[in-house]
């Protein structure tokens, strides 16, 4: 089932009653999520991701705009009639019910000709539990499970009614680092097996990049960019997206275009054909440099961190907006830590230039 959002807007009245202006949590969103894909909805805290999820699930009604599941307009439908499964951030498993009862809970709500017998419910619950590999713990209460197992139960409960769309709210935020890696693979596997269109919300770009078919980046309720993770990473449309994606983060410099050339400080970096003179930001991905003693960009060397196959060069530059810059180079490259400065050549594909005022990308 594809999901289409048309001019979706959600405003909340301001808490401070003196301010008449509404808070706009989601601002004029348009996009189409293809059928059967895993979509990561990505943005910093408070950017309206969860509101977005609530709108799609029907827990909130939009101020303006429409939501379509396939060809059906579901904007006015209550959550239970939309055919969605929702996994909450803290799972919201009923603590007094066993795993089996928790998974069966949505089935027991069915009425009329959809009503199932007890045996059918048990069978379905077991099937779903097997899918998420929790079937060995059917008689346990949620408190007797680990965080990762609880997460699986929550997913099973969301899946048992075979929803058209599965929504996950920060699914991994309550898990420790190891479990997070494991669980995200698990979510990927379950999504592949069920082929249910899945939207998950996260503020962790690594999480979104690693398992999503596509990511949607948002900021302050506004749509920024949508695309395959690598595409968005390689071709960010503005400075925010460039900064938000990638660990370590992109290194940003205050730069200038002068006489069709790009300068960082006095250093001439590259040509900027057919571009008028202006102030810009130049972003260089950490992996976007090649060590070269005669390179064009020179920074003050702070320290060198060797981490197995990579070497992380920590340095500073007067023109950088980051306090420290971090570049990653292959470990074969030797750097003398006693050196005061370090110089690089820059890979053109890893260099992104943004207008200083609009922060939109400028193609070189």
């Amino acid at each position, binding site marked *: 089932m594809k999901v289409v959002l048309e001019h979706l807007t959600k405003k909340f009245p301001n808490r401070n009653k003196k301010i008449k202006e509404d808070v706009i949590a989601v601002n004029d969103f348009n996009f189409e999520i293809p059928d059967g894909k895993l979509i990561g909805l990505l943005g910093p805290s408070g950017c309206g991701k969860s509101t977005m999820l609530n709108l799609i699930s*029907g*827990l909130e009604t939009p101020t303006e705009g429409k939501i379509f599941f396939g060809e059906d307009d579901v904007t006015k439908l209550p*959550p239970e009639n939309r055919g969605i499964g929702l996994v909450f951030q803290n799972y*919201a498993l009923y603590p*007094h019910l066993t795993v089996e009862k928790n998974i069966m809970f949505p089935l027991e709500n069915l009425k009329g000709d959809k009503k199932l017998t007890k045996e059918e419910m048990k069978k379905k619950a077991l099937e779903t539990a097997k899918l998420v590999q929790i079937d060995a713990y059917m008689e346990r209460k949620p408190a007797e499970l680990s965080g990762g197992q609880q997460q699986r139960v929550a997913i099973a409960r969301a899946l048992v009614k075979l929803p058209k769309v599965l929504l996950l709210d920060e699914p991994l935020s309550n898990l420790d680092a190891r479990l997070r890696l494991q669980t995200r693979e698990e979510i990927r596997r379950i999504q592949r097996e069920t082929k249910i269109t899945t939207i998950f919300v996260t503020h962790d770009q690594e999480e979104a990049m690693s398992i999503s078919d596509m990511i949607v980046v948002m900021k302050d309720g506004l749509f920024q960019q949508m695309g395959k993770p690598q595409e968005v990473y390689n071709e960010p449309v503005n400075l925010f997206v460039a900064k938000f994606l990638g660990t370590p983060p992109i290194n940003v410099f205050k730069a200038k275009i002068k006489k069709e050339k790009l300068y960082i400080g006095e250093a001439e970096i590259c040509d900027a054909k057919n571009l008028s003179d202006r102030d810009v930001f130049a972003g260089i991905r950490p992996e976007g440099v090649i060590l070269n003693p005669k390179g064009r960009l020179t920074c003050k060397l702070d320290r060198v961190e060797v981490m197995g196959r990579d070497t992380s060069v920590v340095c500073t530059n007067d023109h950088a907006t980051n306090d420290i810059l971090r570049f990653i180079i292959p470990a074969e490259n030797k750097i003398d830590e006693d050196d005061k400065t370090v110089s690089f050549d820059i890979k053109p594909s890893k260099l992104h230039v943004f207008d200083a005022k609009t922060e939109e990308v400028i193609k070189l």
Partner: protein
Amino acid sequence: MKKNNLKAWLYLLPAILFLGVFMVYPLIDVLVYSFEEGYNFASQEYFGTGIYNYSYVLHDTYFLQALKNTLILVIITVPLSTGIALLISLALNSIKPLKNFFQTVYFLPYVTNTLAVGLVFMVLFKKTAYSEGLINLLINALGFSSVDFIDGPYWAKMLVTCIYTIWIVMPFKILILTSALASVDEQYYKAAKVDGTSRGRIFFKITLPMISPMIFYLVITGFIGAFKAYSDEVALFGTDLNAAGMNTMVGYVYDMLYGDSGGYPSYASAAALILFSIVFTITIINLLISKNKVHY
């Protein structure tokens, strides 16, 4: 290690001292009194030991009346007050405007003096030679004759006592239940909503189990409190509860000690221990039931 132990005992000493003097010793003394026959308060002498005191108390018509009154009071008021408190809490929890106002209103009886409340009930229920109580005016308006709720038939007096008791214990229960309801995580309700759960099912399958520990707590303390009823009856019917036929077990114990017919600590002790054993048994039964019914 030894030094540490000494230190620990030193820290515990004040508590042990006070608990020992004011709790443990009197408790033991009550037990001793209850087995001393023919104890004389003035000369501090007794004839022998045995279970005569218990036998006397259990054959005393006043005691049996008090026992009956107390049991009726417990059986009627505990479930009713808990049930009504739950309904009011649910209503309070679901309204938004004036929520705080209503919460305050429902909490007022808790901070009001028992005797002042007793006065209010007099105005409501008392029928005198000169005036009818407010309730009687209502009854008259409906075309029935007046009932004397304070000096009249037994059921009328019991009715007033029950209403009074329920009204008195309600605020505390509402307070506990509204906070219990408020502490149920909103996400459970959202999850239930997404799954299309009906309101009734949400209440019985989610809300009730979630607040069951609090309900259970209220039932146990409610039982204990109702068994200890005394001041409410005094507020309504005055100190001579035996004459009114509305005495309670604690009232009987008090009368045996200090009342006009008092001065019998042995009988009082025996009655107190009978009361204790009843409360103890019921609490144990409660705990056993709750093991199966109360979740987590």
